[in-house]
């Protein structure tokens, strides 16, 4: 029986995870807004995907053989932007124009505007179906590339997520990997209060997926689970990543006041940076 209170995660973050979070904080400061907690729960997921799993060429972002990676919970885009900039998809200076009129990086990722972004997302419950279409196409083309879709728990309130899950299960899309950022917090409150998803892994298994659960901030666990994909030879995979909203900054963790933040003061900025420095391995 899962806990019905806000989760606790004591995984220590290493220097790379801390630096990516610093980058996110700086971008939020530059744009004077952003989904802080929603981005922080995703950092290790994207870090491991782009460091260890995905095949891509930042100089040729539309290389046909690339793995497709869709961030369906588009409001967590700063984690993706930080990693894409780190990998050279676009200059880091774009991050300092976050949400600015002359920037390419908005509060939700846009296809065709941001190199490396495969689909425009932001309204929840769209990315998984788009990923299903891409995975069906990869199979049709007999291409070995795979499709990764990162979704959220609050997003899984949307019926369209489950329509897509049925479809992926029906077609036994073993070239598709879903990563679910299960930070158990949504805008109004915990997922348990708003719309309980548990037993979550059992639901996905019932929809035809092979499912595993990992600590979504434990880089080793994420690597190992992704290395095992497809988790079953004839089914799509889902890795349910138990995460902490705002992971890495003690006063942001599980604090819904930091779900989306505007007008960050210099004092708050200083506190964010200090807290980041205090919470790493």
């Amino acid at each position, binding site marked *: 029986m899962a806990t019905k209170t806000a989760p606790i995660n004591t995984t220590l973050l290493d220097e790379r995870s801390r630096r990516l979070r610093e980058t996110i904080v700086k971008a939020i400061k530059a744009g004077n807004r952003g989904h802080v907690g929603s981005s922080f729960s995703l950092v290790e997921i994207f870090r491991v995907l782009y460091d260890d799993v995905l095949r891509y060429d930042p100089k040729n972002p539309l290389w046909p053989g690339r793995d497709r990676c869709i961030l369906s919970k588009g409001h967590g885009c700063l984690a993706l932007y930080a990693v894409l900039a780190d990998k050279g998809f676009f200059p880091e200076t774009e991050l300092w124009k976050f949400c600015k009129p002359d920037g390419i990086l908005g509060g939700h990722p846009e*296809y*065709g505007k941001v190199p490396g972004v*495969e*689909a*425009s997302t932001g*309204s929840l*419950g*769209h990315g*998984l*179906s*788009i*990923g*299903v*279409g*891409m*995975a*069906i*196409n*990869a199979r*049709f*083309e007999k291409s070995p590339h795979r499709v990764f879709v990162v979704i959220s728990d609050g997003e899984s309130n949307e*019926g*369209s997520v489950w*329509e*897509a899950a*049925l*479809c992926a299960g*029906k077609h036994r899309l073993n070239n598709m990997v879903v990563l679910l950022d299960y930070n158990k917090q949504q805008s109004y409150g915990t997922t348990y209060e708003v719309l309980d998803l548990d037993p979550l892994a059992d639901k996905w298994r019932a929809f035809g997926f092979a499912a595993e659960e990992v600590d979504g901030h434990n880089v080793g666990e994420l690597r190992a689970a992704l290395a095992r994909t497809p988790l079953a030879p004839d089914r799509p995979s889902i890795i349910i990543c138990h995460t902490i909203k705002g992971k890495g900054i003690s006063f942001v963790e599980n604090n819904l006041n930091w779900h989306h933040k505007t007008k960050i003061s210099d004092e708050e900025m200083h506190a964010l940076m200090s807290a980041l420095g205090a919470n790493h391995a």
Partner: protein
Amino acid sequence: MRKTCLDCVYEIAKTDPRVFFVGSDLGIGTLKEFKAEMPDRYFMEGVSEANLIGMSAGLALEGKVVYANTIATFITRRCFEQVCLDLCLHNVKVRLIGNGGGVVYAPLGPTHLATEDIAIMRALPRMTILAPADATEMRRMMPLTVDHPGPIYIRLAKGGDPIVTRDEPFTIGKIFPMREGRDAVIITTGVMLQRALIAAEMLHANGIEASILHCPTVKPLDENVIRDYAGQAPVIVTVEEHTTVGGLGSAVAEVIAEACFPAPKRFRRIGIPDVFPDQYGSQDTLLARYDITAEKICSTIEALQNGNRYH
């Protein structure tokens, strides 16, 4: 018209490997030859329109041309946000084929009447809206849908509709003048062309000469032709199997209002008023219920010509 449309999809797919078909839960045997001959490009994905559209977008983002088909109400308003974001925002080649545009499904009641489909599709940037008048026009139109940029909504009529168009090349975005007359202009889309043609004959018998503009493309609207004809006639009437809110009539009204003609025009939209239709019956009886008839077109034009603005 529906059979012709799907036959065209099959024929196009045979020669173009980019073409996919995605249906919801259509009638048994739908496109069975397509399924038998090209099973890896044929999908029937169930009563899940949101997924159907998103999945089609995913295929189209990979360079495929996807023909997605279900009942018009469900492929427009049920999954409106997917149509808006997955298709229009991404500007992908997904062709929505909507069965039963207008009041074709009259006996099934208001849940199945696509009477605002044009209005809501028209509000979406990059969407093209096609409503041919008969099966032969459909056959001329469909090959052009393959490489047309962006998403398309194809509004199907009942089927077995009389052939009223001429055998001339189709162009997406072009109005087809079907009759010339100096006294009035009747502007229609889809199968309403039949009624306009009958009305024009009746008017002719009464000494009134009406032009007819057939708009198989409602968006983008061929505005220049509307301005040209409207500029030369004192009376303009639109006819559509659709609510008068936001459809062809509204689009034409916008063009006429912004044309700033030196002399005022007498203009009227004929269509379904701002209500949920409250009867069953047939397409014809429901259209008659809301005065979408040749007789009403005639009497409206005659009244406008006589200066009666509130006919």
